[in-house]
């Protein structure tokens, strides 16, 4: 029996440290862990016990949050592999990807002038999500082969693409709001 605070996020959920995570399994273990440590279980057990419950439940929440999303999971895996990605200097990115990004940004910015802006958003979203899928597969493979520099670059691409998706969602909501008003 080891201390919860000495485990990494994958160990907390008893999962192998890999990019491929069974989300149903992760969620199921998450719920069972919270059943044990959630502060609601310790409302009248004294201040120290409550504090410990808050700390443990927070850690489990943070671990769950990190592993649930592919982007933060990839980031965390690289940290586990010993890469100092929080203070990264190397932000190089292949030229063709950057060109694609510039083009995509222009397309996102001009969505509103499109004749059918909402279906244009849908088209771009589909395109970005496809690309994300490919990059994620490459990341999983690179990480497994311990090609961490390569994996690192792929994780940065995932961050870019994730941002694109968020921006497109925001645009969609803004357009929907205008159409409703």
């Amino acid at each position, binding site marked *: *029996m080891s201390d919860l605070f000495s485990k990494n996020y994958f160990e907390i959920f008893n999962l192998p440290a890999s990019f491929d995570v069974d989300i149903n399994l992760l969620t199921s273990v998450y719920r069972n862990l919270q059943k044990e440590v*959630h502060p609601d279980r310790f409302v009248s057990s004294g201040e120290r016990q409550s504090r410990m419950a808050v700390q443990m439940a927070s*850690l489990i929440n943070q671990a769950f949050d990190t592993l649930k999303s592919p982007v933060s999971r990839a980031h965390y895996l690289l940290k586990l592999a010993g890469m100092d990605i929080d203070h990264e200097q190397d932000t190089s990115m292949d030229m063709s990807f950057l060109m694609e990004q510039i083009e995509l940004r222009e397309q996102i910015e001009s969505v509103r002038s499109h004749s059918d802006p909402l279906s244009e958003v849908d088209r771009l979203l589909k395109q970005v999500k496809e690309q994300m899928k490919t990059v994620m597969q490459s990341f999983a493979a690179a990480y497994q082969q311990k090609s961490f520099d390569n994996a690192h670059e792929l994780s940065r691409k995932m961050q870019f693409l994730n941002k694109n998706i968020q921006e497109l969602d925001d645009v969609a909501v803004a357009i929907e709001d205008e159409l409703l008003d």
Partner: protein
Amino acid sequence: MALLQIAEPGQSTAPHQHRLAVGIDLGTTNSLVATVRSGQASTLADDQDRSILPSVVRYTADKEVVVGHQAQDQAITDPHNTIVSVKRLMGRAVQDLKTLSQHLPYQFVADDSSVPRIKTVAGDFSAVEVSAEILKTLKVRAEKSLGGDLVGAVITVPAYFDDAQRQATKDAARLAGLNVLRLLNEPTAAAVAYGLDSGEEGVVAIYDLGGGTFDVSILRLNKGVFEVLSTGGDSALGGDDFDLAIAEWIMTEAGITELTSSLNRQIISAACSAKESLTELDTVTISLDLDSGKRQLELTKLKFNKLVDSLITKTLTSCRRALRDAGIEKQDIKNIVMVGGSTRVPAVRERVAEFFNTEPLVNIDPDKVVAIGASLQADILAGNNQDGDLLLLDVIPLSLGIETMGGLSEKIIHRNTPIPVTRAQDFTTYKDGQTALAVHVVQGERELVSDCRSLARFELRGIPPMVAGAARIRVTYQVDADGLLSVSSREETSGVEASVVVKPSYGLSDNEIEGMLRDSMDHAEYDMEARKLREEQVEADRVIEAIDAALIADGERLLSAEERQQIDKSRSRLTEVRKAGKAEDIKQAVNELEKTCESYIARRMNQSIHDAMAGHKIDEYISDK
């Protein structure tokens, strides 16, 4: 005759004794209290069999405080001293009220405190004090009908309440002498009432339109676990706004340009009853008693629907955002539960049904469902229902950030992050020898700090002097299960705990609350010392009981003989001190016992995690898919 059972000294006489706990829905328009008796949750009524307590408080010249129906009856004749919809003022600052107060008949007093006070004939009162009167009334009602002291209460708040509004609610409970077991989000409470009742599994949306607030939550229900996926809403949008929309129409139609407080109340009250009538009728006649004589107006349902259309659209925009935050499509929503009196408005039901493409559920009384859900959780938190398989996993409704250069907010904890949550952030100094650092915490989604709610400003002091950039100050933000923020900090290179002085931007300081408690107790000749002593004794009993239960369960397995001896020593010291009856000593002995047990407690929790993982059966995984 059965033999009397006598417990060993110091042990709890009845381990399964039912503890009296209640759920309270502290609403904008109405408040309710509910409890679980013999496994059944129900609301508690007053001596005239009324469950609903109007959230109205009237202060009279002879310093009497009248709460509920009787106060409501005086709202038109005595508008300045009769406080309605006080929930809208909770956690609000003087400057926030400028936009609200055009519609409010009260006079506000702005003094040195950051909290505005309402001027009445009986004195000036803050929203917290007014709310405390409502809570006191419900507490008295509950204790009378249950026949004993309450161990605690779960009090509901709108999911969209920010930190200041939550803190204000907790302060009101403290002032009313209630032990708050948990602040629970209203939609989550409704989901509990609904989900436990029906054994429903899957994703549900809770649409909660109350008198003054709107909330929407998306939850996943799974084997007694209620996991909030996202929440959204507007803490200043509700049925009151429907009334205002009608009131404005009335004023235009009747050509009213000058408003006295009393006329304002008359119009709003007429608007409110017109709204209620239009639930059943297609046309309603509004009668006004004006200085120029009597006046009658016709309002059709069609016109009313037009008046409130943009308000309903606002709620649906929040719904859409909540769905997006949850990563859920409309068609994944299995059911929509309607909560709050304002969901009786047919146009609301129609548009919600149209939006989700599903008929919403209205089978639990929308006025009672929140209080019922809160009472179910109170029952479990009080320890009455040990086998109850209920766990609520909630989220923080609004992002927390800190002010950075240029007045921008840098998000530290994003909205819809599961709580409790802890985040740490490192700062450094920018000048040689700098020993202090100021941090401004805000809540909200906007980029500019000026568009967010200011929660607190604090200063870190006592940083050891170093060259610029050498210090590493780690600030830890923690949001607990009530959704309340606390901050701590530490200089990492020296290990110095920099002191954090949090000044809530809008809220009562501890001193102010202590003062209010003292004032309110003066009449009752209440002794602060006696109260403190009783609180400490209750706490001591609680800790002893918890430790005893733990020791029986696994003391043998997890403790060495020496450790056990230490614990027994601290425990008997506490029972001795408890008898001697000095609050300070008890507090210290409790602390001592808890400290002695700390590693044992940690071991127990790690053990239970270990057991839970080992007991994780394969079939559970499969059934979840």
